[in-house]
Every structure is written in structure tokens, then in C-alpha cells.
């Protein structure tokens, strides 16, 4: 498998074509956070909304346009974290960041398990310029979580 094929694995191509969680959903929750992120290299934008309830990430939806990496990444993000506990979501987020910094190497089994489909992004780690693309949705998620928790107080 060439590096290019490793980057554009079928899972990624599929998520890019058929993105999950796309379309912002109105939330009738107390803790709602939203974030708007721009990839300044190409002008791609993502707006992502999270709703928290008790200890859980109830809802993760988004809208925006971008390259297949950024679209697939936010689609996978939706799949992975919607419905998890806050601490699971944090652990997943951290594992994904580590994967991006692993320069194309796989992570240990525990964290691979956490990442599920997202392990397909391993090839992106070899391309520093594309890490930004893969992280765009996750940055938005991280920021939206902070916003949502602000409402707590």
C-alpha cells in the first residue's frame, strides 16, 4: 500500500462521501456549545455544536465544507463521541491527537480500540500539512465542549 493509499483508506473515502452528523440540530438542552473553526490554509470552515446532559455527550452535529480528510474526520468524530461519557470523549480526543502526532505509526492496542474507525487516519500523520485538516473538527469539538461547560456555571 503506497503512502497515498494508506492515507486515503476506504473507510476515509466512505466517510468523506457519506458524512455522519452533518446538519446542525437544534438542541433543547441546558449545556450547549458551538464552535467555528477555519483552516486558514484553504479557507475551509466548520461549525460544530455539542449538547451535554449530565455526564454525557448527547449530541454532536456540524456543518461545513472541506477536503475528504477534514470531512471524514469530523464524520468519524461524530460516530465516536456522540453518546459517550465526557471522560470517554476526552480520552478519544486525546488518542486522536496522539495518532496525528505519531508520524504514521500505529498507537498501542488500548488506544486503537478507543479510536475504532479513526485508526484509518494513521496515514495522515505522515503529512504535517494535512494534520490540520484532520484536526479541524476535533478542534471545533474541543472548543465547543469548553463553551458548553461554561453554561454549567
Amino acid at each position, binding site marked *: 500500500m*503506497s*503512502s*497515498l493509499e494508506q*492515507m*486515503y483508506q476506504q473507510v476515509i*473515502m466512505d466517510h468523506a*462521501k457519506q458524512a455522519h452528523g452533518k446538519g446542525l440540530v437544534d438542541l433543547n438542552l441546558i449545556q450547549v456549545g458551538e464552535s467555528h473553526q477555519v483552516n486558514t*490554509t*484553504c*479557507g*475551509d470552515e466548520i461549525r460544530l455544536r455539542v449538547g451535554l446532559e449530565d455526564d454525557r455527550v448527547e449530541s454532536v452535529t456540524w456543518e461545513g*465544507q*472541506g*477536503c*475528504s*480528510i477534514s470531512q471524514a474526520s469530523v464524520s468519524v468524530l461524530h460516530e465516536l463521541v456522540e453518546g459517550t461519557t465526557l471522560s470517554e470523549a476526552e480520552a478519544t480526543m486525546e488518542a486522536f491527537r496522539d495518532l496525528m502526532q505519531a508520524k504514521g505509526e500505529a498507537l498501542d492496542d488500548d488506544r486503537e480500540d478507543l479510536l475504532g474507525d479513526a485508526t484509518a487516519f494513521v496515514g495522515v500523520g505522515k*503529512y504535517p500539512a*494535512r494534520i490540520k*485538516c484532520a484536526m479541524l473538527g476535533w478542534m471545533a469539538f474541543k472548543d465547543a465542549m469548553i463553551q458548553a461547560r461554561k453554561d454549567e456555571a
Partner: protein
Amino acid sequence: MLLPDLREDFPLLTRTVRNGKPLVYLDSGATAQKPRVVLDAEREFYEQHNAAVQRGAHLLAEEATELFEGARGDVASLVGAQSQEIVWAENATAAVNLVASGIGNASAGIGGDEAARFKIGPGDEICVTETEHHANLVPWQALATRTGATLRWIPVDDQGRMILDDLDSLVNERTRVLAFTHVSNVTGLISPVGALVARAKAVGALTVLDGCQSVPHLPVDVKALDIDFMAMSAHKMLGPTGIGALYGRKELLDALPPSIFGGGAVKVVTMEETSWQEAPMRFEAGSQPVAQAVGMGAAARYLAGVGMDRVEAHEREIAAVMRAGVAEIPGVRLLGPVGSADARDVIGVASIAVDGVHPHDVGQVLDDAGIAVRVGHHCAQPLHRKFGVTGSTRASAHVYTTREDAEAFVAAVATVPAFFGVN
């Protein structure tokens, strides 16, 4: 009319990239590669003559000053200016800002009586175009904010050509500055400089030309174009990073207040106030990019040696090969004029949008084939918005670009739709 193969002169072009593939460098519009003579000129400066210029009374300082001022002369010759009309700046962006901030400072009371001619304020207008690089747009937005003047712009059509139908109302008696690019960094279109300058002159507006994408690629004569200011960047002219230059008519430069304040630019300094030197010194505060000036001078001589008319012919032909090639690929849209008749005003560049594939993904496939292109909005967001896309994939040429490079680009682009399953 292609140039002979000059790649021998450019050390970087022999390197290989992904999996040992030979490099096809088609990102010269972002930054050009450097011929050995430029690198040698810089290195020799550092190893033999490095010293602070203008102020020293020792041998090295004399030698350094002579090289520094000689380089100014070389850059001036390339564009038909006088030496003293060339001001060093960090890059073209800084050169445009120097004019815009100078006008802003004049408007804020800096620079005394002689600067009064540059004062602008509410009711005055600044005109740009919709095809501008951010470097020739954002400084004018900021000047408008700072002074209360109004920013207007000449629109472009869906091929990226400036629409001059309303020129007389867009550039009018209230217009104080008309700033526009000579060549678009996205479409490669050469602007109708004559018509724009004529209109600016008729209403007494200053003209500021963005020469970033023209000076490296075609003969430019600032006196023949009859412009007031022009910005250029060495790194796109086969020169070093870290330096560019502003051309300005001497009598304007001598009256415009500086916007970077410090040593070397001043005549007499007391704790209370400061008087400035004449141009170009008044704009060159602080220790200058001396080795880079020497390198830029060497680049100007190299280009002049090749001959700018030959460079132009070369770049037109490379553009034609790339543009004709990609235009035939189903699902690929060429930004800018399409068709051989329309393309006669285009030089050196082919920017494309591939249906259903994001430019980043296009670029990735090309990169894997060893082809270096630029993806994104190329610092021209408004123009891309006009084209209805957020970004594009741009191939851009220089003197060392070969027909094979152009063909490799076309061939690689043809594989893209299939790779992403969009055809």
C-alpha cells in the same frame, strides 16, 4: 518559444521527493527556486564583506556599502527605475504597507508640510480590484478604517477579467489611490494597466501597482507604465527570501513620511523630535537585509541575462501547454479565461478546480507523483468567492519550468477524478 533547459543552474531542482521521484516544481508563484549565482553572491558577501553598511569607516563597511548600493542599481535597471527610487522592504507585502501606512501617517499629522499632499480622510476614496492578493487589499482596508476614507473596488467577470464599464464612476475626483495588480496570481491574467493608469491620472489619483507576479515573468518598465509606486518580492524573482522592494517616483518618496521609525532613516534626533533623510534612506530604518539585497541584485542580473522578453515567451508557452491540457480533462474547470484566443493575456499559471474533489486532495495526489503545486485560496479569497469555490489547485512556472513539467502536471491531474471515484 521555450528557453533552453536552465535547471542546471538551480541546485534544488535535482533533488528527489516521495519515494525517490524526481521533483516537478510547479509552485514558483508562491516562491521560486534560486540559481547558484544568487546563493554564491550571498555566501560570498558573508564570507568576505559582511559589515554594517552606510555608516562604517572601515574597509569591510566600504565594500559592503558598495555591494549593497550596487544591488539597488541592478534592481532599478531591471524595472527601468533610478537607483534612488528603489526602497528595500522585507517583502512585497511590506512594500505595499509602506505606501499605505505612509499615507496613514501623513493623515495623522506625521511628516510635516511636505507630507500634506498625501493626507486623506472621510469623503476621499481608495480604489482596488476584486482580483487582488490580500497583500494589496488588506492594507487599503486598514487605511480606510484608519482615516475614514471609503474603499471601492473594480469588479471582475466570471473569467476573472476586470470589468471596466464603470471605471469612470469607480475612479473619480474623490479617488486618491488606485491600487491594482499587474498580473493575477490565480488566473495569470495581465491587467489593463494603460486604461487604469490613464483614468487615475485624469483624476489625480496615485497609482500603486502590485508587480509581484509581473516583474519575475515579463519585461516591466515603470516609466513606460507611468505608475507612481510598484511592489515586488525577491523570492519570486529567483532571489533570496527576506527581501523585496518598492519602486516609487523620487519626488513622491521624498515627501511620503516613513512608517518604520529608527536609526539610519533619520537626520537629526533629539528627545523631542526627529527629521528624516531623503528617500530611499528615510524608509530603511534599522539594519537592512544586506546579504539579501546583494542576492536580489544577483537575481536581477540573472533575469536580465536570460532576457525578460524571452522569459515572457517561455512562460506564455508553458501556461498554454498546461491550460490547454487541463481544459480537456472532464470534470476539471480552469479558473480564468478559457480558450486560446481568450488566453492571450495569460502568463505562467494554471489554476483549476476538480469537480467533487477538494484542492487539498488534488494536491495530495500530485504531491505523491512528485509534483509540487499550491492548494488553497492563494491569498485571494474574494476572487475565489467570485469563482464560487473556496480554493483551487495552482500550477505556476518560472524560467526553469520545462514542457515535460507542464505535461506531467496535466497527466497527473487526469488521474485525480478516478482516484476519488468522482467520474
